[in-house]
């Protein structure tokens, strides 16, 4: 499998995170089912990469696999290299040190923060556990970061309990806490999905701002293609446990190469256009183990599928500044770009 380093930029810089042929199988109703079918991804220092897909595509699973948070019983093959070290074989103390350098921001902040401990305790816990700084230094840093994420009256907030804060504020606290240990990579798993739209944009802006400021790499997982394109340098689209396209966000947004990416882009309602019906992608999203074998997994839903698509699986091939998993990508270039109404 070829690596997914975009040939145009970042060609010589070593990547911070290098995922190669990652395959994950989970026990589902007594049998091992594939949920990730050979993921190849790299993230460079300070780069932000978006991972877009519908439910079942495996996007959250990818982040969990990288952070070694898969449920017991999961089978993982392939390689995840962080700064040169193989993550999948880490255990004990080295694994904990890896976790200091990689921070995860979760989807539902209220469920992911201990309700019986104070905010200050939550924020400083990781730094103290890794002996990175004294308690007072950690508290000071927490206050700085609270300010940076736009929460005022920091000292009071630190003493409060999670139930006293709104969802949006809790997510900001989560982001601030993630930055406290000076991580080099943040894995954000749908950080704004549980929030209302206004708060969403605020939180996204903060996340984007801060990660640029502190030069932290970001893997941003979402189902919203537009959101990813706005925030990330590069975007990868996932379907049925595979990456089907990965390119710079601008190019992907304006000129999608894969029929699925195009459909996702077109499906979003536009504020500056009217349509009689909302465009939806026909059919249901699939998990990897539900996808047909021996053919392109998107073929059943693809309006451009030909017989060839149903007889062999396409590989990721370079095209127009990115990689795409479609045998007809070259031909479809002109048609897909004009896919909106």
């Amino acid at each position, binding site marked *: 499998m070829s690596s997914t380093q975009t040939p145009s930029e970042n060609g010589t810089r070593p990547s911070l995170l290098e995922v190669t042929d990652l395959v994950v199988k989970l026990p589902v109703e007594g049998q091992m089912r594939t949920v990730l079918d050979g993921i190849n991804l790299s993230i460079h220092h300070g780069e932000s990469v978006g991972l877009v897909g519908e439910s079942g595509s495996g996007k959250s699973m990818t982040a969990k696999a990288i952070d070694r948070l898969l449920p017991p019983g999961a089978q993982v093959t392939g390689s995840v290299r962080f700064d040169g070290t193989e993550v999948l074989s880490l255990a004990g103390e080295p694994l*904990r040190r890896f976790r200091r350098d990689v921070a995860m921001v979760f989807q539902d902040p209220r469920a992911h923060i201990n309700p019986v*401990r104070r905010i200050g305790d939550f924020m400083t816990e990781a730094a103290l556990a890794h002996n990175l700084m004294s308690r007072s230094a950690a508290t000071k840093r927490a206050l700085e970061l609270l300010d940076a994420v736009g929460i005022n009256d920091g000292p009071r907030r630190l003493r409060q309990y999670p139930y006293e804060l709104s969802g949006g504020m809790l997510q900001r606290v989560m982001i601030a806490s993630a930055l406290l240990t000076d991580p080099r990579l943040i894995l954000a798993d749908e950080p704004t999905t549980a929030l209302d739209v206004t708060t969403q944009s605020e939180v996204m802006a903060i996340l984007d701002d801060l990660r640029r400021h502190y030069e932290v790499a970001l893997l941003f997982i979402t189902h919203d293609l537009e959101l990813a394109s706005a925030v990330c340098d590069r975007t990868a689209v996932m379907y049925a446990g595979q990456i089907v396209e990965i390119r710079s966000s601008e190019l992907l947004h304006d000129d999608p190469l894969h029929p699925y990416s195009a459909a996702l882009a077109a499906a979003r309602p536009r504020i500056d256009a009217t349509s009689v019906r909302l465009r939806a992608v026909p059919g249901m999203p699939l998990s990897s183990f539900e996808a047909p074998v021996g053919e392109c997994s998107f073929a059943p839903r693809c309006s451009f599928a030909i017989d060839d698509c149903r007889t062999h699986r396409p590989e990721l091939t370079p095209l127009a500044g990115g990689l795409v998993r479609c045998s007809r990508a070259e031909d479809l270039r002109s048609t897909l770009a004009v896919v909106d109404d």
Partner: protein
Amino acid sequence: MRWRFLALRGARLVVTLLVSSFVIFSSLYLSPGNPIATLSGGKSLSPQAIAALEERFHLNDPFFTRYFRWLWGVLHGDFGISIALRSEVSSLIAARIWTTLALVAYASLLILVIGIGLGLIGGLKSGWLDTGVLAVTAISAAIPAFVTAIGLLMLFVATLGWFPGFGDGDGFTDTVRHLTLPAIALALSSLAIVARITRSAIRAELRSEHVVTAVSRGIQPAAIVRRHVLRNAAIPIVTVSGVTIASLFAIAAVVERAFTINGLGAYLVKAATSKDFAVVQGISLVIVVVFVVLNALVDVMYALLDPRSRMRRS
């Protein structure tokens, strides 16, 4: 905010106690039967003697007068006179309450140590240790205290002779020796419930999302168990422990009877059969008060342990 909660809870406590005392008093008041007959022991008395008895025990006063007189007396430590034994109920209670308290305290210790201990093992470990805990708790939960008592008597007293089979002993060590088997009998079925709840609370916390967060941050496993699993599981564990211990006083009656211990419970049963109302009233009130107060304490502890409960109150 906290004071308001305490005040409200305190008020609720007092109301519950008052109403309970009323229920206890009126239920016995409504009981059929002639107190004169009990007092006289079945002998027929002259009208003057009857009148004197009625005067002395205020038998002709209206209901509420009698209730308030009784309540007033109770609040001053006067529980009335035992008709059967012709002595003050308060001293009869005082003589026996320490035995029952010792028994309940001993059993509570066993419940907390063994119950929570087993629950911790079942919650934190997997495999045959956990299965063992589940099996033990399933069985012990189903054995009523008095059957346990018989079993213990058979095994440890009759067969092995390690412990005495009756009485409550003098002095500390002797009392402990005498109360060990009764305490085990009292504790066994209750500790199963505590163990079960402890186990499921710990397992639920281990699976919770905030623990995933802690793991993702690379916090040491021991710290995670201490700061997140145990701290959060403490809420249901304390609640169930408190409630279980509060109900021990009532079950003690059975165990006291089985082991012939001269405690409050056994005495209550005796008084009930001989219709010695004052005693039944007094001891019932003591048991209810203890039960209600302990439950209220559990509520307070719950509020202390779980900050979210303060949110609901206001």
